C-alpha cells in the first residue's frame, strides 16, 4: 500500500533565484537516486528526487517551473504537504572506488546526498580501503549565481569540486561535460598494470543526474573510455508504482518509476529514446532540442 503522509515543512532555504530546498523532519530511510511523490491536494502530485537525508530527516531541492512548484514556492515552513515513497532504484554505493559525479541543475542535490552517504560509510567502516573512496564532483550551471551546493559539497571529505558555467562567470566556461576528459583518462577501463598504478588500484565509477542531453554526453564519454556509469533518467510519471505505463521507455518497455530512475550505463545504452525523445502527459513523443 502506498500511503501518503502529511508532513510539515520544517525549513525552506533559497538556493538560487529559481531553486529552493524544503526540509522535512522525517526519516524515509531512502537511498540516493530514489524519489518521492509530493502531493498538494487540489493541485497535483509530482515526482521529486530525494535531495538529502540524514538522521534529522530528508530534503527536496525544487526548481520552480509550473503550477505545482509555483504553489510549493508560495508555501511557508509549518505548512503540510503529502509525501509518499521512497520509490525507484538508487545509485550504487561501492567501496574502494574513485567516483566521478556529473551534476546539472537540481541533479546536484541527489548526487550531493550520494557523496555524503559515501563519506558516512567511509567513516563508519574505518578500513583503509573504504577510506580511500575519492570523489570528483563536476558541477554545471548557467552562471555563478545558479551553482548549487558548493558549500555543502566543500564540507565533504575526499571530494574535489570542479565547476563549469555556460557564461564562464565561475570555473570553466562551457559545458560541465567538457571537464570529463580531465578526470577520465583515455582508456581508463583497460586494466593493464601501468594504468592500475595510475589509479592506485581504484575503479572509476561515474554517476550522473541532470538535463538529459548532458547525461547522454556523459554516457557517450563513458562508453568511449570503457568506464562504468549510472544515470538517473526522468520520465513523465503518474502512478509511480509501475502500473499506468506512462514512463515506459522504448524499446525495452522498462518503467522508469520502478526499474529506474537510476539505471546502469549498459542499460541506458540500450534505451533507444535516451537523449532523443521522451513522452508528455498524453503519451506523445517530445524530442529533445540541442
Amino acid at each position, binding site marked *: *500500500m*502506498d500511503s*501518503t503522509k*502529511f508532513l510539515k515543512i520544517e525549513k525552506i532555504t533559497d538556493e538560487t533565484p529559481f531553486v529552493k530546498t524544503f526540509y522535512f523532519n522525517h526519516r524515509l530511510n531512502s537511498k540516493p537516486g530514489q524519489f518521492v*511523490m509530493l*502531493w498538494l*491536494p*487540489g*493541485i*497535483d*502530485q*509530482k515526482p521529486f528526487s530525494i535531495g538529502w537525508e540524514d538522521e534529522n530527516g530528508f530534503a527536496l531541492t525544487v526548481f520552480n517551473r509550473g503550477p505545482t512548484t509555483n504553489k510549493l514556492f508560495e508555501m511557508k515552513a509549518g505548512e*503540510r504537504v*503529502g509525501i509518499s515513497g521512497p520509490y525507484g532504484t538508487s545509485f550504487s554505493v561501492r567501496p574502494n572506488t574513485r567516483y566521478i559525479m556529473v551534476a546539472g541543475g537540481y541533479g546536484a542535490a541527489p548526487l550531493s546526498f550520494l557523496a555524503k552517504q559515501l563519506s558516512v560509510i567511509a567513516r563508519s567502516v574505518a578500513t583503509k580501503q573504504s577510506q580511500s573512496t575519492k570523489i570528483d564532483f563536476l558541477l554545471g550551471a548557467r552562471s555563478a549565481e545558479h551553482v548549487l551546493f558548493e558549500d555543502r559539497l566543500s564540507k565533504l571529505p575526499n571530494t574535489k569540486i570542479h565547476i563549469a558555467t555556460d557564461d564562464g562567470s565561475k570555473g570553466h566556461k562551457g559545458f560541465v561535460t567538457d571537464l570529463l576528459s580531465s578526470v577520465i583518462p583515455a582508456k581508463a577501463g583497460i586494466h593493464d598494470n601501468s594504468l592500475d598504478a595510475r589509479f592506485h588500484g581504484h575503479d572509476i565509477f561515474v554517476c550522473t543526474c541532470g538535463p538529459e542531453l548532458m547525461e547522454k554526453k556523459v554516457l557517450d564519454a563513458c562508453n568511449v573510455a570503457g568506464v562504468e556509469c549510472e544515470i538517473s533518467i526522468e520520465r513523465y510519471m*503518474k*502512478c509511480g*508504482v*509501475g*502500473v*499506468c*505505463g*506512462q514512463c*515506459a*521507455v*522504448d*524499446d*525495452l*518497455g*522498462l*518503467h522508469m518509476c520502478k526499474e529506474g530512475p537510476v539505471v546502469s550505463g549498459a542499460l541506458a545504452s540500450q534505451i533507444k529514446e535516451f537523449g532523443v525523445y521522451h*513522452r*508528455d*502527459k*498524453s*503519451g*506523445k*513523443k517530445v524530442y529533445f532540442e540541442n
Partner: protein
Amino acid sequence: MLTTTFLNKTFANPIVLASGILGVSAASLARAVKDGCGGVTAKSVSLEPRSGHPNPTTAGMEHFFINAVGLSNPGVDAAVEELKKFKELSVSPLIGSIFAGTPEEFAVVTEKICAAPIDFLEINVSCPNVSKEFGKPFAYSTEAVEIITKKVKAKATVPIIIKLSPNAWNIDEIALAAETAGADALCAVNTISGMIIDCHSRKPILHNKQGGVSGPALLPIALKCVYDIYKKVKIPIIGTGGICSGEDALAMIMAGAALLGVGSAVYFRGSEVFEKICEEMEKIMEEEGIKNLEEIRGAAHSS
C-alpha cells in the same frame, strides 16, 4: 494446456493485458508479452490527444486499486504508429481500444484505428472517470450501446468487442443489446465507480475525486457479471476484474469467460504476474485432472 482460441485466433494462454495498464506504447505492450501475456489490449485512445486528469490519478490500497487517469492518450494517429510498431516487436494477438464522445465520433476513430495491424477492436463505452466531459457512460444505456455497436461494426475491419460497466444493474441485458447489434465479443468488466478520502487533508485522494475501483475487491462483482452475461448471450466474453491468481483465473473461466483480462494484478504482484498466474492455473489443473480450459468453461452454471 492453456492454449485458447478466441474468434478464430489462437492465444498461447488466455491471459490478456487489460486496457490502460502499462499504457499504449509498443515497447510497454511487448514487455507484457515477454512477461507472459497471451495477448494484449492497448490503452483506449481518442480522436485527439488528451492529457488526462492531474495527479493523484491512481492509488493502491490493500484490497483494491483505484484510478482516474482520465483517458490520457496521444490520439489515434500516434497510437496507430505504436500499434504498428508492436507488431514488429511481437507476434501476439493485439486488441486495439477506443473511446469517443458521440456515436459518430466512435465511427471516425474506428476507421482510423483500423489502419493499424490490430486483430480485434475493443470499444470502451464504460469508463467511469470522464463523466464531467462526456456525461454518464454509454454502457449504462441499452439504446446507446446498440447505436454505438452498429456504427462501429459498419466501419470496423476486425471483430469488435464491447466493454461493459459493472455499474449497470442490467449488464446482461446491455450485453444482449450489443450482441443483437452485431458485437463479436464482450469484455466484462471495466472498473466500478468509487472514491477514497484522506482523513488528514479531509479530501478525496484522487484529483478527479471519483475513480474506478479495480483489483481483488472487484473480483466477486466481475464474476457475477460474467456469470449473468454468459447465461444471456452466445458470443465470447473477456472476463476482467480483480484476477490476481490462478484460482481467480480458473473461477472466471468457470463463470463462462473465454479470455481473461488482467490489469491491477501488476500492482499487487509485480510485472511478472502474468506468468505466475499461468503457472498457478496449470498446477491447479493438474491437481484437479483438468486437461484443457474447454472442459471447465461455464462449469459454475451446471446445477
